[in-house]
């Protein structure tokens, strides 16, 4: 990126709007993750976060990129909704509850469904995994989560996994910075 472009970005002239889809099973911490990035006046008290019904749309900024996050409900009966948003999104945040060993297979099943979907399978869409709830006693490490989900088999898409604690905000910034970078590249490549 040239100096001029950098300047332009810095001054906010060339501001881009991107859509990211936040998915993951219920009780994995999607809404809490999004809540962390919101402005202070929009933030909800962490104890007041309730299970999302359907989905909710939240906006936040990172490095001059305006994110529109579609916070999807992770409940089994709302997971059908996810696929309707695959088409228009520039990046996917997949939140995994690393302490829920029982449902790791369900996460894998949902991930496979996502990767096989025609709106996703032939695009180089970046996927960010949050191995959330790293503070829990029985939490699995992000390496183990990556192995369990078979992330090493994803060859055609950039992906990144970062261990996070959405309550304290640990690990979230790192992940989103990676995603911002990837989305920028994705958009520039697409425009070329």
């Amino acid at each position: 990126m040239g100096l001029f472009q950098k300047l332009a970005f810095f001054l906010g002239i060339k501001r881009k709007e991107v859509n990211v889809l936040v998915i993951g099973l219920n009780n994995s911490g999607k809404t809490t993750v999004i809540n962390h990035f919101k402005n202070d006046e929009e933030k909800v008290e962490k104890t007041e976060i309730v299970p999302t019904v359907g989905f909710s749309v939240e906006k936040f900024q990172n490095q001059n990129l305006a994110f529109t996050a579609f916070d999807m409900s992770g409940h089994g009966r709302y997971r059908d909704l996810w696929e309707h948003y695959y088409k228009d999104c520039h990046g996917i945040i997949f939140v995994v509850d690393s302490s829920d060993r029982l449902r790791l297979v369900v996460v894998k099943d949902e991930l496979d469904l996502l990767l096989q979907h025609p709106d996703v399978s032939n695009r180089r869409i970046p996927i960010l995994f949050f191995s959330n709830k790293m503070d829990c006693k029985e939490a699995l490490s992000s390496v183990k989560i990556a192995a369990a989900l078979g992330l090493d088999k994803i060859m055609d898409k950039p992906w990144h996994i970062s261990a996070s604690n959405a309550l304290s905000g640990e690990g979230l910034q790192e992940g989103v910075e990676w995603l911002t970078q990837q989305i920028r590249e994705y958009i520039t490549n697409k425009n070329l």
Partner: protein
Amino acid sequence: MISIIRKFIRNDLFQGCPNLIATPLNFFTPVNIIDLNISRWLEAHIDRSASLTTFSKNLVLADVCGDGEYRLVLTDLKLENNEKSRLKIYKGTVLTSDQTLPDIPSSIISFYTSNYDSKIPVIGVACGPDLLIYKNSKPYFKFVVPPLPIEALEHSVWNRLSEDPNIDLQSTLDDLSSIPYKSLSPRSQKLLGLQTPLEIKDFISKYKSSEPKKFAPITCMTTLNRSTQDKQSPACPIIATEAGQIFILDPQTFTPMHEAISCATKAIPCVLQAAGMYDVEFRIVIACREGSICLLRRGWLEGKVLIQATANIVDIVVIPGDHFIMTATTDRMLQCYTKRGNKLWNQKMNTDITCLCLIPLSHLSTSLLGVGLRGGSIQLFQGRHLVDIIVGTETPSAIAFGQLGQEEHVMVIITTGGAINFKILKRTADFNFGDGEMNSNPIQQTKPLPLPKRSKLFLEQSMRERQNAVDMHQLFQKDLIRLRLTAARATVQMQSNQSSIGNEQELVKLSAQVPLISPNLTYKIETKVQEKDALVEDNQDSLQDSKRLLRVFVVRKREAKPIVAATINMPPTDLSFLL
């Protein structure tokens, strides 16, 4: 005739007709078999070293901490003398609580006690005659079933033992042993088993101050919602004892609200299933060790026998909605009865049935029945249709299905080898219900055809049919030939009668009517001209004449020869009538 048809239908419905299974429209087509092989279940966790001994009705999935994380609660039976059975709680796949039980547990339930306190359900474990209630994984309350009456002689023996220290021990013990061993209290049974006089003396001095008591151990339990069908509403524990007593307990005070006996004759309950609500209307289905299935309803003091199975009952499940009673018996049969006890269908399994499990799928608005089979497979039935097979390597001894942790559709399988296996139903699994319905119309018929009852008349008739089949056939043929002959004669007669007033070549018919008998007679003569059986013209001529003989000619224009000629003889006018 009817009896043969009936026999055929019965064969088809209940034994499964081999011809039907081969037809391409049937459910068991190769396409569907491939479908069955695609697993609808995710293999979440398997622990082969859990070494659990758990039977059906000894595991429940409940939100025992009230945090929305459902846990698996089970009892691990230890049948050796030196080991105690244990109550174990699993959070997800991890064992979080393990405590000893005083006795071998027979069954376990979970229920909410009241509407007002925090939404934490209690666990009820039946150990001998006690119902141990655990709340927050800690002992909370103990309910003991009321004692059974003691034999009068046994009572007097213990009275004498406590009153008179110098009693003749031998004669007293002889009195005791004259009572049938089975009806003695455990204390007397133990006393009779002691060998040395010293032991006997010690034993008597230890226990003589208190009355002997006899309790019937609890054999099985279930729960019944009290006033609403809500998942978290209070539910009454229902317990059944070895003596055939059924107690419905108050969920808050744990005192019996209703007491009944399972059946008029002696029957030991082994499985209880309840539906409905205590305050409104309920049905308790009781499977007994004697092979009978009894029904107990609100207000009844005694169960009514619905079904008498021919073999021992392994397990029963009542399907919600239509209340069908699914019964598994030791002769490898899976049978379905209506709530009134009418048999709908049965299916023979290839191996022994070890356990049953209800699989309610609210998102598909149906319920499946899981049938655990020796050898390791679990077959899932919707109605009488096999919709899925879960293949395993070890025989399942207990299956539970429900919410575990955050996941709603988890199947927990405990095998006879002691392994614990968690499977999760895929969100996308739909079990091809739609296809099944379309493809298997002949078998889909869950309702039997409305066959008439086999009355005495029917039996006599079918017996006669079988004995005199040849005679009946010949008689029928003879009658048929006679009927044909009569018909032919009548036709000839008709034709010969018509010839005088009709011309067959010209297809003209005449008929005369005298509508009114009066001095000015009016004749109505109809000329019908028919062309190839179809009536083309219908002329009506009215003429007045007083003559008694009438000649009618139908002639074509410019032809002298009449087509039809008829002479009508009028009946003589009855003058007296006219006057």
